[in-house]
Every structure is written in C-alpha cells, then in structure tokens.
C-alpha cells in the first residue's frame, strides 16, 4: 500500500510542488481511502462459466492457407526473360526436387453444411484408449480417473465400489440449440502412396503385375542406441514414434527375482518436476521439427499421484516409469478432452530413467471440418445423465457405496469415435464437464462427462417416453 501511496503523491507533486508540505495529511487520507476500498472475491464458477460462454459466442476463425499468386501484367513483360530462364532451369532440376508430402502441416478448420457428417451413432465400442503410449518396453503411464463409474483400477482398497453421483452445483445452461461438431480430415495423400509403391522393387516377384494402390501401414526405424521406430498409417493419417526397445537399456532384462525388480523400480523421488518433463518433450519436438500448431500448452498427466498419496503402503503403490505429457488439441479456444474429461491430443512419453522421450503418439495434421448439429437443451435430462455417471458409464452393483458429488458443469469439447462402415470417424463434440467435488471423490473419478450433441446422447441414453394413461 505504501508504494501505491508514494506513486500517487509523486504524481501529485509533479503537478503541484506546493502539496509536498502537506505530505503527512495527504498520506493519511489516501491510506484511509485505500483501506475503505471494498474487498471482493470473484466466484470461480462464475469466472469459468463466463469464459466458456465468451469462447462459445465468438466466431470460429478459419485460416486460409491457400497462396494466391498475383501477377502484374507489366511485370510479366519486364521479367519475361527471367521467367523463361527460370523455367528452363526448372525442367532440368525437377527430378532432384523432393516428392509430394504425405501430410500438409498446420491447423485448419473448414465449414461444412448442417449435419454434413450424417448420422452420429456410436455404433461400436471405440478402440482401446489411444492415450496409452504404445510399443517400447511395455512400460506405460496410464491416467487415473474419468467419467465412467465402475470399479476403479486404482482403488486403494481394491474392493468393488458402487458410485452414487449427486449433483450439487448451480443451475446451468447447455447453450445454443445447435452447436458445431468437428470431424478430423484424415487427408491420405494418394499421390504419395502411389509414388512410393511405384518405386518399390521387391526383387522376389514383380510387384507391378498387381494393381497395388494403397499403403495401409509403414514401419521404419533407427537401428542404433536409443533409436526409434516410426509407425505411419497413411489411411488414418497418424504417425506414432516408439522407442526401438531392443536398443534402449532395460534394467529388468537380467532380473530373476523380486529383489532385483524392487531394486530397479522407479521411485517417486526419481520423478523430476513437471517443468523439466515438459522441457524434455519440447526439446525433442524442436530438435526434430515436430509442429505443435493447433495444440495448447502441454501438461503432465499426474492423475496416478492421487492413488499414490492415498496408498498406506507406499512401497506397493505404483509409480510409472514413463511420465505422460499431453499437448491438448485446441478447438474453438478450448482444450479438447477425452471421455474422462482429461485433456487429449498429442501424447509424449518421457522415460524417467533415461530422461529421454520414449514415444510420441497421435501425430497428425489437424485438419477439421465443422458442421452444426442439434444439442440437448433439457437440463433436467442432462443432470439425470450426469447423476448416472455420464456418457457410456457403467456402475458395479452391490459394492461399497461411494458418493461422488458433482460441481457446476462447464462447457467444453470431447473427442469421440463414430464408426461408419467399419471406418472410424474422429469427432470433437460439445459437452458438459461436471467436475467432481472433494478429495474423496477425486481419488476415483475426476469428472463426469455428458456430450451435448443430441444424436450421440439419444443413441447412448434414449429419453424416457411417458406413456399416457389409457382411459
């Protein structure tokens, strides 16, 4: 406060030096004025709700990445000779130019018509969570908690639990009756794949005698210490980088007894702070030219720590060998979440022992189409679904009942997969996220997620039709 008063007085004296003689009086009046200033505390849920509403109000900005060459006709005549020379050189150098790119990097969202993606029925169970790092030595970091109920893998007591969800938040709104659904465009580059096939000489038979026109999966690697494998899926438009496990040290390789395993287990004190882990991930990206366009600032997934803190015998509690970093996909100003309400996007596994990146999964160019779909605006229905555990929830019956209290929801987006004709469509849909209140609840579940897109909700949670009583 004194600094503030000094600043105000110094400004005053610059204007009227005569006031300096009254400094003690002025200092007191300013002090009283500052002390009498009303104190306030901004309600967190208000601040969060307003931010969500503002982000949903704004118009999506579509990046135009097309470059338009504009010729000045006068320039053509002036530079005609130069162009001709350049064209001639180009003819001779074309074979030296790199081939077409597999993916176009950068972030883009394009607008499609209403309900352009067809029916959104979650027909099949999605594949195993793509948030788990794959390959390598099998040491994975798995996030804890989420929207579903049922027995928690990380329940400290390992006994069956039945969750009872109780909403304790304020009145809320689902927002506009139609909201955008985003579909990721996989952009398989057929020129690239056909070009690759044409250059491939098997040597054992004539490949060109077949009509080979698609490449589904490519796995290439580095055969060196701390080398990597690169799994490229041109059809899905994704790439995964995994450690070449045979070229990375494995402390358990020579273990023959429990004592050896215990000795080589990673301890919680081995885990560096989040800033260090994130720096390792970012340095890897910078070194290898991996773009983070379209992603938000990364976070370390530390959900496993909740179970660790609650464990009575810490020596038996699980500590991951790999720290999981997620660079969340950014849509409409929001970090996209998974069905557990946790951030989702580009995943990076950082080895605790090696201090190196072990794997990067879900590398893809972020190209989306957006299309408007009807949203469920009946808040009573949305609350009822939340109190059942949310989207695609299941609850173990007959276990120890644990009450999970839910706070006021905030609006966000979640990533889901819709299967059409055996082909997965990756969608990002608007949703309400109900945070869990209290430490007791958060040891099991972090959030309860309820998607807002009506077709998705109706498929999973058909509304109850009240039959009219027959007279």
């Amino acid at each position: 406060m004194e600094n503030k008063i000094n600043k105000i007085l110094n400004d005053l004296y610059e204007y009227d030096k005569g006031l300096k003689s009254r400094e003690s009086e002025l200092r007191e009046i300013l002090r009283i004025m500052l002390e009498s200033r009303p104190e306030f505390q901004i309600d967190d849920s208000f601040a969060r709700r307003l931010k969500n509403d503002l982000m949903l109000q704004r118009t999506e900005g579509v990046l135009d990445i097309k470059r338009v060459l504009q010729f000045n006709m006068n320039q053509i005549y002036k530079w005609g000779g130069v162009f001709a020379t350049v064209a001639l050189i180009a003819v001779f150098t074309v074979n030296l130019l790199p081939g077409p790119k597999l993916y176009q990097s950068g972030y883009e969202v394009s607008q499609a018509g209403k309900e352009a993606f067809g029916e959104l029925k979650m027909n099949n169970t999605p594949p195993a969570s793509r948030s788990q790092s794959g390959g390598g030595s099998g040491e994975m970091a798995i996030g804890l908690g989420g929207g579903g109920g049922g027995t928690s893998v990380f329940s400290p007591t390992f006994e069956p639990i039945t969750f009872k969800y109780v909403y304790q938040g304020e009145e809320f709104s689902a927002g506009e009756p139609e909201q955008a659904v985003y579909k990721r465009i996989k952009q398989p580059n057929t020129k690239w794949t056909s070009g690759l096939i044409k250059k491939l000489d098997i040597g054992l038979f004539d490949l060109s005698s077949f009509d080979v026109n698609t490449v589904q999966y490519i796995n290439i690697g580095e055969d060196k210490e701390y080398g990597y494998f690169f799994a490229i899926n041109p059809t899905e438009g994704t790439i995964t980088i995994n450690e070449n496990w045979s070229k990375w040290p494995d402390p358990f390789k020579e273990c023959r007894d429990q004592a050896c395993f215990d000795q080589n287990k990673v301890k919680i004190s081995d885990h560096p702070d989040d800033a260090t882990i994130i720096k390792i991930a970012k340095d890897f990206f910078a070194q290898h030219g991996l773009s983070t366009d379209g992603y938000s600032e990364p976070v370390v997934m530390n959900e496993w720590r909740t179970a660790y803190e609650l464990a009575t015998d810490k020596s038996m509690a699980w500590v991951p060998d790999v720290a999981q970093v997620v660079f969340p996909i950014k849509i409409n100003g929001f970090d996209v979440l998974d069905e557990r309400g946790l951030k989702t996007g580009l995943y990076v596994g950082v080895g605790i022992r090696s201090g190196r990146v072990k794997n990067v999964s879900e590398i893809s160019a972020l190209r989306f189409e957006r299309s408007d779909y009807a949203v469920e605006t009946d808040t009573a229905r949305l609350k009822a679904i939340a109190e059942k555990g949310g989207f695609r929830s299941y609850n173990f019956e007959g276990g120890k009942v644990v009450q999970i209290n839910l706070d006021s929801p905030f609006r966000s987006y979640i990533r889901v997969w819709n299967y059409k004709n055996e082909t997965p469509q990756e969608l990002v849909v608007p949703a309400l996220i109900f945070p869990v209140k209290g430490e007791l609840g958060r040891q099991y579940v972090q959030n309860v997620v309820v998607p807002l897109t009506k077709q998705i909700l109706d498929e999973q949670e058909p509304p109850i039709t009240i039959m009219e009583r027959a007279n």
Partner: protein
Amino acid sequence: MVKLCQEGRLENFAHLYDHYLPKIYGFIYYRTKHKETAEDLTSIIFGKALRQINKYDSAKGTFSAWLYKIARNTLIDERRAKRENIDISNIDISEGIDYEQKADQNLRIEKVKKFLDSLTPEQREVVLLRVWDDLPYREIAEIVGKNEANCKMIFSRAIAKIRADGSLALLTLIFLNGK
C-alpha cells in the same frame, strides 16, 4: 493479443479475459457493492468487448482504457435503466461494513465519505479511478474524455479541497486519537 483477436484469432480473447477480469469486476464492484450486479455487468462488458473488438483502434488509446470505457458506459446505462443518479461515482463507501467490529473506523470513513461527497462528480470520478482502480492519468484521461494534464489538475484540486473544507484537520485529529 488484441491484434490477434482483430485478425480473427478470437481464441486469444481468453487471455485478455484472464488479465482484465479482476480489474473490470473490481471497477464495477467498487461502485455497486453488489456481487450479482457486478457479475451481470461484467458479463455484459466482456460480451461487448468481444463483439466490438474490431472497433478498437490502438492509435486512439490503450486497450485497457477502451475496456474501462465500455465498463463505465455499461454502468451508466444500468443506472439510467434503474432511474438512478447517473453520477457513477456516487457511492456509499460505508455500505456493508460491520459497524460493531469496526466502530473505531466509522468516524474516519464517515469523514472520507463527506470528503468525497463534497467533490464535484468529475473530481470524484477521477479520484476513484486513481486511488481505487489504480489507473494512470493517461488512461483516466481516455476514459473520462479529457487530457492528462487536466486530470492531474482535477485530482490535485480535489485533494486541495480537503484543507479548504477543514475536514482534513478533523481527520488528522481522529487519526492521532485513534493511534
């Protein structure tokens, strides 16, 4: 950040919101002393700022002053709608204070209230923007539509008024007795 928003990258408005929320909410709360009103008006202010972001011209002033102007105008509109005195610096600074616990301060606060009441609306507004909202004269000038030198003069004259009224002498006595 503002430039990015004006280029269509409106997701950056979230950063502006995070930075200015406590300031704008404070501006409204100091003058209304009512949580629900402060929340409602803050929502309106940021909504207006988002919709009108392309109207902000950096050549004409700072973004902060532009936002405070929206806040000021929104508060005036709200008062007009309630048919209240549109002098937006007319506040009751003793409202909400626990008189039993802070009885020793009541007299001091009453005197400060008298001091503020003795000012012209223009003087009161500048004093509050400087002392409570902690804004520099440059921004105060943009908000109230005057030049910087004028605002310094207004503040100086407001402070000088204390002696002229003799209320400061009284205040000083109270402080000395209260210590």
